Each structure stands twice: as structure tokens, then as C-alpha cells.
């Protein structure tokens, strides 16, 4: 998830910035932590040319925003296994045999081989997987080069995490709103569970809001720590978010709790929506969700009447077979209750006029319509591809001043599953080159067996990485990436907000580590297109982007932590919404044009197979790690020695399992091993599977992939039709049928993995 760190402009203006004293010989830099994607403003302390400490910001508005991963960063990036020099594969693919080469040697060969593939198969035969928050300094340069050579096949984890949310929100009101946590009176968390050490600023905002009296409503099958603190906890069945939201709408519409004036003046399709909502009486919703109808109604009433309320972005709805309908229902609730672009509600901020945004850098207009039409997956699942999103061009230009708005990088993506099929030789055309930057694709998308097959079918694989991940082990070249301590950063909040934040460079990168800016610049040169990245270095690129402020990047970074235009509310009154109709489209004209149901709907789960009687959810982030990263850090690993699944006491008891047992989670696609934690907070029949497990200390190479074959949850994530969202083609990760059986401990298992205790059973499930 990107960092939607919301802020109160008044608080920034009046903040008393007082730098804490530092010992002699220590210099400080104001930086943004990019260890995870939340981007906390922090301070680095530098001694003898290296960062020795990361602490929270001296700016009071960011004071409490730091977690264990940020604090350990100086040691994490000094790890002896960090890749410091370019590596070229010398054995067969996945053999784990490498030779050190120079950057020039590597890039010359990569450029020549990429040009050969493009000449032979066309520019669409090259796929790229990355995201701006892992690489930070890409800033759309990858898309810019791809667009100029004619390649639409960019994929990212944002396809199932925030990027797709942005694209689907555009269907309703043309932009992706950000909640005003500072002034809201009610927060609704849909399965999302920000904690002290994960999504820290959001956790802090929620706690602050509750402290000043805001209500918290949590929908979550498990009793999470936020559920424990909530005013209302709705323990819905996994994957039934859409049914629950229909129930809320039923109450709100039947009891006329919506904003009638806004609905009549600014929305289209209300009567059709009402008709659809009537299919979901509370008794039916109660049956579908497993929740008490009175509690559902009570929560809906609080949301509608005690606002302004916010429904912050949630990764949970992003990863379901009903994702499009779920995200649409959230946007519809925001709209009909009158919470759009109002203080305390959900703001539509637009671009900052003083900063050249990343979409402009990407230059999507240079990619021809013919090449756009080749974007993989856009035929069957077009919602976040060019095919759907270019339908907003005219409206986006009218409201936000430019045709393309690649919010959260998620609005012009190829579909990951379709891309991997094409890479495996099962698509409409061949894909023979695959680049991934700051990304571990084998473990970050559904269907790892397919991705492995796809990688084995490539002529050229290039990774830009800090560590030898399982995916990097399958590459032809692994190029050393820098870290956030070693580069400046202009963070534009992924186009989500009209603010930018600025991060100073704290130290020189070790060895030959380089930024993604340098990677793309060198690639542009090596394919014979140096004019595509004309800036000498990252700093001059940033100077170009901030020139309208009248300052250089360094001057701007010295002057403020955050540069923003003071928000204006209800801007739609001047220019309408950035939809084809200019209104909030409760019934989506774009979905209708594309041949989909223009209204939200609920697809129930397929019948459970007797062989796989349980449902699992995955995608869970553990506090010590970020996605598949940081398992090499001893201090973090000590907190999570082994991957751990959760079962309820009753479920575990019926299966004869006890705390600390090694188990195998299996389904039609594959299996993983994990230890068992028994949690009173888990409902019966549901299995919590942790995301992104591998063990950097284990053997490298395709036979073992450092334990990915044993532990990676992507081996269980299906992407067949029943388990894909229809409009987006993203996988259903919240309710995958599976079974759990007792297993022997792997030879590499930690001897101290079991930390079970009676008290732990009662803790919340995170």
C-alpha cells in the first residue's frame, strides 16, 4: 500500500519544528523511510559517512511515525549478503552460478539482447514488474521508456493492492479519494488492520481520531487488534464484504439516511442502484455474512448519520473475486452519504500544479492505440487497463488538466495472470524479456507454478535488487539496487494527494549499488534512446520537476518536509466529476460500455470441495517484515522464526493439532508448510496464511529457491476463473479452499519455533 499519510494543513503551518540535539560528530538528514510503503518522515543520524540511527521526525506532526523496521534499517542495509556488484548468470537458468561484471558490460549486453527481442517479437514481448514505492526513484521513467518503444505490458503488485482501488474508484467519481483522518467522526476498517509497526501513521491517525471521540467500525472475520478497539465489530464471513456493503446500503436507502440533495444533483443511476440493493434484504445479508442483522443496521446508521465518515483504502477488498463491486460499493457509500470532498470526509485532491507529476513523466500519449490494444489481459479483464481507463481521458483533462492520471500507478496496467501466461507461451503473443525492479514476482502474484514456468521460458530476465530473492535467483542479470538511506527522494504520494514530500540523501551507496533512475537512464542509452532520460542525474531530474516552485530540489527539501497546495473542498461544483457524465456514476457508464454489469453485484463462493473443507486468507503482513522482504534481518526474524498459520481452538482440536505443530496447507494448486498458532480470535473453518515467506539462509537456485518452494503462499493462490475478479482479473485471496494436515518439521526448521502459551491463544489475530 502506498502512503496516504493524510495531514492537516493548519497543523503543518503551525508546527513548531525543533531539532533534537545530537552528539558531536553526528549530522542529521530529514528523510522519508522507504523500508515499507507507508513512507514515514524520519531523521537519519550520520557518523563517519554512514547512517547509524533512524529516529522519528523532529517535526511534531510526524513525531510518532516510526516502527521497528525503520529503526533497524542501518543494519538491515549493511547486511553482508547485500548485492553490491552487477552479477551475470553463468550456469543454466536458476543454477545459482554467477560472475561479477561491470555495469557497462551488463547494460550493453542487456540493451543489445532487448533490442533483438523487440526486433524479433515486437515491443510488446517485453514485460516489466515493479512499483514506485519499492524502487522509489523510478518516477515513471520505466513507463516512459516502455511507452516510447511501444510496450504496454507493465505489471505490478498494485494490481491487487491500492493501484486497482484507484482505477476502480475512477469508475464512480473520476479520482481516488483520501480520507481526512484529522477531522472525521467515523472510520470504517474493512478487514484492514493498521498496527503500531505496520501502517504506523494510519494506526496513529486512527488512535488519535478515537481519542477525540470518532467512532470505529471494523469488519473482519478475525478478532484483530482494531476489532478489539472498535465501537462495532462485524465478524463477517471471509470474502463477503460486498454482501455486507449491500446490507448497509439497504438500511441507508430504506431509512433515507443518504444525502438527498447530493444524490439528486450530482449522481446518476440512483433508482437502478436502489433496485439492485433491494435484492439484499438484511435477512439475506445476515445469512451471506454470518452477522447479526441488528448490528449490521446499527453500523450502517452510525456511518450515515454520525459522519463525516471515511472508509480508508483497504487491501482486503482489493483481493477478492468481487473486488470491483466491493470497491465500487465503498465509493457509492461515500458518495450517497455526502462525504465526497468535504472536511472530515474523502477528499479528491488532484495534481499539485507546481510539480511535474509522474504521469506526465510517463508520457502515455506516445503509446499508439494499436499497441495499447495489445495490453495483456485487457480483452477479458479491462478495468485497470488502457481499454477502460482511456475512456476517462476527456473528463480527466476537463477536471484535472491532463488526459492521463495514473493514480497509485494502477490505472494503465496489464493484468498479471495474463502476462505470466503469455510469458509461459500460452498467450496471444510471445513475451520473451522480463525485468523486475525492487520486486519479487514469484511470490508477489497468484499462481507461483505458472510464474516459474513463465520465467523459465524467457530469453532475458533482469532483476534490480538489494538481495538475492527467489525471483532474482532465476535472472540472467542481477543489478545492485540502492536503499532509501543512499538516495534523495521526491515522494509525490503516488499521485493520490496534491502534496509532495522530500527526502535528503544520507550516505553514499555501498559497492556499485545504483538507483532505479540510473538503471533506466543506462537502459535508455543501451537501447539507443538516450534522449528518453535526458537528465544528468537524479538531482537534476528533481530540479526539473520542482522548477515551478522557484526552488531547486535541495532548497525545497531544506525549506519543508511537505509541499502542498491548501486543499479546497467541493471542487466538483466548479468542473463536475472526472467521469464521462461529469456526475458520480452509481451506475458506471464505462463498465456498461465494456459489456459488464454497470452496477455492483455479489458472486457467491463456489461449492466447497469435500477434499478442501477449509477457507484460507493470505496477504497478511507481519510486523517485522515488508511483503517478502527483511527476512534476512536477525532482529526481525527473531520475532517471526517460522511462517505461522492460525486456526481457532475448536478447529485445531477437531483436527488433533496443537500449538507449534508443523502443518501442511494444501489445495488444488500446491502446498506450503508452516507452524500452527491457535488463536481464540479466529473463526472456525478459517485459516490465516502469512504472506511472502522464504528463508534467505536456505540454498539458492531453482530447486530450493531459498525455501520459497516450501513456504511461499503464492503457491496456494489460484487464478482460474472462479478465483478471479471478472472486471479486473485479479485473484481471490480472501477465502481460498484448502485443507490443513499435520506435517513433519522441515530439516531447516528452527528448534525454537514454538512459542505457544495459553495467554497467546487469547491475543488478537493480526
Amino acid at each position, binding site marked *: 500500500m502506498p502512503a496516504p499519510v493524510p495531514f492537516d494543513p493548519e497543523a503543518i503551518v503551525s508546527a513548531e519544528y525543533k531539532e533534537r540535539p545530537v552528539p558531536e560528530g553526528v549530522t542529521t538528514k530529514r528523510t522519508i523511510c522507504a523500508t515499507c510503503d507507508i513512507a514515514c518522515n524520519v531523521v537519519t*543520524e550520520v*557518523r*563517519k*559517512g*554512514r547512517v*547509524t*540511527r*533512524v*529516529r522519528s521526525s523532529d517535526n511534531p506532526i510526524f513525531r510518532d511515525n*516510526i*516502527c*521497528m523496521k525503520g*529503526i*533497524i534499517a*542501518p*543494519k538491515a542495509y*549493511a*547486511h*553482508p549478503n*547485500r548485492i553490491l556488484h552487477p552479477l551475470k548468470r553463468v550456469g543454466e537458468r536458476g543454477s545459482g552460478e554467477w560472475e561479477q561484471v561491470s555495469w557497462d558490460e551488463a547494460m550493453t549486453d542487456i540493451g543489445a539482447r532487448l533490442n533483438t527481442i523487440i526486433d524479433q517479437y515486437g515491443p510488446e514481448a517485453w514485460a516489466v514488474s515493479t512499483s514506485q514505492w519499492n524502487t522509489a526513484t523510478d518516477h515513471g521513467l520505466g513507463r516512459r521508456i516502455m511507452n516510447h518503444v511501444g510496450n504496454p505490458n507493465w505489471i505490478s503488485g498494485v494490481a491487487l493492492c491500492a493501484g486497482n482501488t484507484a482505477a476502480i474508484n475512477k469508475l464512480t467519481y473520476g479520482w481516488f479519494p483520501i480520507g481526512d483522518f484529522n477531522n472525521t467522526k467515523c472510520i470504517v476498517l474493512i478487514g484492514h488492520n493498521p*498496527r*503500531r*509497526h505496520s501502517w504506523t501513521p494510519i494506526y496513529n491517525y486512527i488512535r488519535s481520531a478515537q481519542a477525540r471521540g470518532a467512532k470505529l467500525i471494523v469488519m473482519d472475520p478475525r478478532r484483530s487488534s482494531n476489532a478489539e478497539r472498535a465501537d462495532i465489530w462485524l465478524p463477517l464471513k471471509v470474502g463477503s464484504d460486498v454482501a455486507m456493503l449491500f446490507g448497509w446500503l439497504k438500511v441507508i436507502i430504506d431509512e433515507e439516511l443518504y444525502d438527498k440533495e447530493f444524490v439528486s444533483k450530482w449522481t446518476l443511476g440512483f433508482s437502478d442502484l436502489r433496485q439492485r440493493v433491494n435484492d439484499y434484504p438484511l435477512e439475506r445479508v445476515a445469512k451471506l455474512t454470518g452477522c447479526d442483522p441488528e448490528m449490521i443496521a446499527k453500523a450502517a446508521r452510525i456511518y450515515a448519520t454520525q459522519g463525516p465518515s471515511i472508509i480508508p483504502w483497504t487491501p482486503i477488498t482489493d483481493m477478492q473475486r468481487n473486488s470491483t463491486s466491493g470497491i465500487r460499493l465503498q465509493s457509492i457509500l461515500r458518495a450517497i452519504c455526502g462525504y465526497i470532498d468535504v472536511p472530515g470526509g474523502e477528499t479528491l485532491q488532484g495534481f499539485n500544479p507546481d510539480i511535474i507529476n509522474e504521469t506526465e513523466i510517463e508520457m502515455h500519449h506516445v503509446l499508439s492505440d494499436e499497441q495499447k490494444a495489445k495490453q495483456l489481459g485487457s480483452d477479458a479483464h479491462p478495468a485497470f487497463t488502457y481499454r477502460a481507463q482511456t475512456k476517462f481521458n476527456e473528463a480527466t483533462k476537463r477536471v484535472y488538466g491532463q488526459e492521463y492520471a495514473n493514480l497509485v500507478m494502477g490505472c494503465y496496467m496489464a493484468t498479471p495472470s495474463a502476462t505470466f501466461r503469455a510469458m509461459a507461451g500460452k498467450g496471444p503473443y510471445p513475451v520473451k524479456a522480463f525485468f523486475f525492479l525492487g520486486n519479487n514476482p514469484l511470490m508477489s502474484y497468484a499462481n507461483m507454478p505458472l510464474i516459474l514456468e513463465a520465467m523459465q521460458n524467457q530469453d532475458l530476465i533482469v532483476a534490480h535488487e538489494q538481495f538475492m530473492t527467489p525471483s532474482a535467483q532465476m535472472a540472467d542479470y542481477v543489478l545492485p539496487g540502492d536503499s532509501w538511506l543512499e538516495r534523495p527522494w521526491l515522494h509525490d504520494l503516488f499521485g493520490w494527494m496534491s502534496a509532495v514530500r522530500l527526502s535528503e540523501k544520507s550516505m553514499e551507496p*555501498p559497492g556499485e549499488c545504483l538507483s532505479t533512475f540510473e538503471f533506466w537512464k543506462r537502459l535508455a542509452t543501451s537501447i539507443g534512446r538516450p534522449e528518453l532520460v535526458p537528465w544528468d542525474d537524479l538531482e537534476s531530474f528533481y530540479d526539473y520537476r520542482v522548477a515551478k516552485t522557484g526552488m531547486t530540489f535541495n532548497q525545497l527539501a531544506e525549506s519543508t518536509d511537505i509541499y502542498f497546495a491548501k486543499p479546497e473542498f467541493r471542487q466538483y461544483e466548479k468542473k463536475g466529476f472526472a467521469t464521462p457524465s461529469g456526475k458520480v456514476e452509481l451506475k458506471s457508464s464505462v463498465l456498461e460500455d465494456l459489456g459488464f454489469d454497470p452496477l455492483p453485484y455479489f458472486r457467491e463462493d463456489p461449492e466447497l470441495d469435500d477434499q478442501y473443507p477449509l477457507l484460507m486468507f493470505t496477504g497478511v503482513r507481519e*510486523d517485522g517484515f515488508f511483503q517478502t522482504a527483511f527476512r534476512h534481518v536477525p*532482529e526481525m526474524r527473531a520475532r517471526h522464526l517460522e511462517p505461522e498459520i492460525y486456526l481457532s481452538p475448536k478447529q485445531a482440536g477437531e483436527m488433533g493439532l496443537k500449538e507449534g505443530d508443523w502443518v501442511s496447507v494444501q489445495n488444488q494448486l500446491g502446498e506450503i508448510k508452516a507452524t500452527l498458532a491457535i488463536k481464540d480470535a479466529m473463526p472456525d473453518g478459517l485459516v490465516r496464511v502469512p504472506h511472502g515467506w522464504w528463508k534467505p539462509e536456505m540454498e539458492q537456485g531453482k530447486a530450493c529457491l531459498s525455501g520459497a518452494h516450501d513456504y511461499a503462499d503464492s503457491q496456494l493462490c489460484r487464478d482460474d476463473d472462479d478465483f478471479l475478479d471478472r472486471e479486473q482479473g485479479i485473484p481471490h485471496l480472501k477465502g481460498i479452499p484448502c485443507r490443513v494436515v499435520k506435517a513433519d518439521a522441515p530439516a531447516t526448521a528452527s528448534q525454537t519455533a514454538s512459542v505457544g502459551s495459553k495467554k497467546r491463544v487469547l491475543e488478537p489475530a493480526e
Partner: protein
Amino acid sequence: MSGLFSKETRDEWAAKATMWMAARSSRNTTFVDRLCRRLLNRVTTRPPETDFMRDPLIDNDQGFDPDELDRYQRGES
């Protein structure tokens, strides 16, 4: 005794008792209030090694020694 009441009944009583104690704790004026406060504090406080809210890594953070980081990076420690 436990055989006389269902688990639900016992849980309900425990919840009511805890709520009563929490109310007394927040008042914090009489001896009983303070006793409740102490009891609740004792049962709800997690040991620092398992409490991410009071993680020693954060509470005691003094940063790293640059020479030690150099040695670590070279695989010497």
C-alpha cells in the same frame, strides 16, 4: 462449581466483572479502585519481549556504531 454453569455464562460473568473493575480503575479514588487498577494492569500488561508497543528495539534505541556496521557489512561480526 464450573460444572454448574455453561462456558457462555462464565464468560459473561467474567466480562461483567472486568467491566466493573475497569470502571473502578478509571475512577481511581478509593482503595478498591486502586486495587482494581493494579490488578487490571497486571493482567493486561505484556512482558516487554512480546509487547511491540513497548519494544526494547524502540525504547532503547541508541543507534549503531559506524565501525561495527562496517565490520558487519564485511561479514566480520
